[in-house]
């Protein structure tokens, strides 16, 4: 019988195994980054904290003089609540722990990721954790604090403690440094958005009559909020990273999604590409002779994307009138506000964080070095070259100058075979990674 006592027994088992997994991760702490060590310490406190809290509440129900049926129901609800907590918080934390070992992630970019997070959310004092995920995408998630989960600190959080934010990258692409521009652009863009509250304070126009229907309004708001947050992150990515934000994203998306397919959480790749081309052109990148044809070709690929009706994957309940209505209400509402969002992001972003077309000559110079097989992390004055320049240079070589890089590796015809082409790209990625490492070392000295 599935009584409260049986639920408690099953819950005890789950907590025991969670605890054992944490203990096993603790054994490998010498290979862990600072953020990951902190996460494990938090997990280590979570399980005993949950058990103490659970036992106190169970005991309190037991000792109160109340009808047995009421006590049974309260205890069952208590078990269900803790099961939910473990299900909600446990997998995220364990996923980060499992993928966070130093051998699974490009540790060379960890310091520069932390710096970007510090710039994106000054005063928030967040510690970033990089982890490898088997899924083919990038993500950023805030990791709940066990004390908050348990409700012991219902007031404000002491500002002396660092909060944790976890970034995932696709495990198979560990060394694909070019793709990681998505991490530093789009995912850090989400952090900027949280800090600057662009999405949170954005006003959606609610379709007529929907305000009195909380369920329908809930779907529309969830969907609208998610799309707004994604386009805001894309805008920030373009503003802070320049063209590499556009060049890397479609490449990643093509591997994972169809060009015109939307989801409840993300606009289709075509819509996002159209937006990013627009932002880059507004920044003046379209006037650069070396970039104009590239931007033009992406513009052709995504033309009129925001005028299309919603197109959802088969597994979503798009056939229901409600979902179709909500999706088709979100598209024009988000499309209508793109310019406003772009202007708002541009105004809120500190000048120092803006990538500029005036730096493009530096990118071209760095790409010259890369095509010769020379890392580009140090400039002529022996100062560190910033990661934005390095990533843009690496991408520029990939999309426009691979034929110059081929001879460096004694591959005179880079199109000779797909294998050679793969080798070329991988070598270029490693060269960019080395460039970032050099830049970080120099930055440490400076």
């Amino acid at each position: 019988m599935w009584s409260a006592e049986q639920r408690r027994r099953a819950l005890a088992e789950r907590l025991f195994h969670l605890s054992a997994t944490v203990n096993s991760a603790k054994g490998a702490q010498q290979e862990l980054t600072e953020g990951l060590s902190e996460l494990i310490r938090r997990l280590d406190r979570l399980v005993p904290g949950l058990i103490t809290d659970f036992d106190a509440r169970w005991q309190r129900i037991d000792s109160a003089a109340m009808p047995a049926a009421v006590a049974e129901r309260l205890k069952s609800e208590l078990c269900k609540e803790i099961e939910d907590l473990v299900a909600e918080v446990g997998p995220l934390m364990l996923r980060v722990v499992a993928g966070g070992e130093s051998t699974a992630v490009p540790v060379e970019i960890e310091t520069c990721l932390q710096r970007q997070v510090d710039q994106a959310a000054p005063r928030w004092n967040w510690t970033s954790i990089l982890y490898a995920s088997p899924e083919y995408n990038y993500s950023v998630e805030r990791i709940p604090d066990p004390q908050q989960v348990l409700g012991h600190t219902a007031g404000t959080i002491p500002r002396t403690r660092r909060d944790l934010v976890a970034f995932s990258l696709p495990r198979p692409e560990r060394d694909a440094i070019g793709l990681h521009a998505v991490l530093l652009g789009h995912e850090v863009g989400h952090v900027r958005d949280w800090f600057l509250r662009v999405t949170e304070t954005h006003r959606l126009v609610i379709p007529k009559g929907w305000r009195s229907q909380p369920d329908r309004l809930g779907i529309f708001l969830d969907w609208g909020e998610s799309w707004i947050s994604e386009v805001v992150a894309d805008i920030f990515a373009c503003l802070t990273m320049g063209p590499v934000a556009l060049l890397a994203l479609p490449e990643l998306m093509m591997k994972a999604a169809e060009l015109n397919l939307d989801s409840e959480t993300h606009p289709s790749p075509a819509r996002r590409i159209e937006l990013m081309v627009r932002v880059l052109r507004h920044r003046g990148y379209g006037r650069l002779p070396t970039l104009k044809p590239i931007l033009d070709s992406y513009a052709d690929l995504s033309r009129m994307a925001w005028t299309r009706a919603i197109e959802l994957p088969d597994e979503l309940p798009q056939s229901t009138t409600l979902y179709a209505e909500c999706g088709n209400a979100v598209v024009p509402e988000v499309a209508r506000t793109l310019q406003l969002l772009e202007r708002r992001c541009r105004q809120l972003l500190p000048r120092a964080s803006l990538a500029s077309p005036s730096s493009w000559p530096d990118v071209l110079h760095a790409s010259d070095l890369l095509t010769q097989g020379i890392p580009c992390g140090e400039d002529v004055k022996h100062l560190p070259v910033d990661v934005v320049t390095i990533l843009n240079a690496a991408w520029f070589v990939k999309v426009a100058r691979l034929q110059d890089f081929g001879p460096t590796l004694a591959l005179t015809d880079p199109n000779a075979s797909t294998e050679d082409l793969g080798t070329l790209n991988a070598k270029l990625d490693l060269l960019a990674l080395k460039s970032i490492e050099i830049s970080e070392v120099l930055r440490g000295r400076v």
Partner: protein
Amino acid sequence: MATNSELIRSHSLPRTLELRVATGKAAEALAIFLSTNQVPTNSTESLLWAAGLLRLSSDQPLRSGRSIGAYKRDVTLLAAAKRAKASDQMKELATTLATTRNTLEQLAKGQSVPTDRVQTAFETLEAIRASVAARRSSTTERILRGRPRG
């Protein structure tokens, strides 16, 4: 406007999860009160925590021109209150939430509250708790994505 620390807090813990734990603890305290006529010791913080989370952003929560953040906070609560009240009238739902909040705050302060009001508050909290509970599909079947609410 929320203070910086409040924002960090709201960003660090999913709102539905926070609501789930807070309403669970408060509902438990009310159930014990209804049986024993005594507020359990150490439940003041839980009652105030839940009361704080039930606060709508204004007297007219869904009026036009609000931000996504303000709408979403209120819609979650009103959709949950609708489960308890079975009413489509936003004003009535808002009143239900405000009354529940007052009951929790009064109990936390040790003030006397009529039993029927505590009973109503308990039912509202139970409905909110149920409406924000996680709905997990069986992991042995292919999961069709449903929307998390809130």
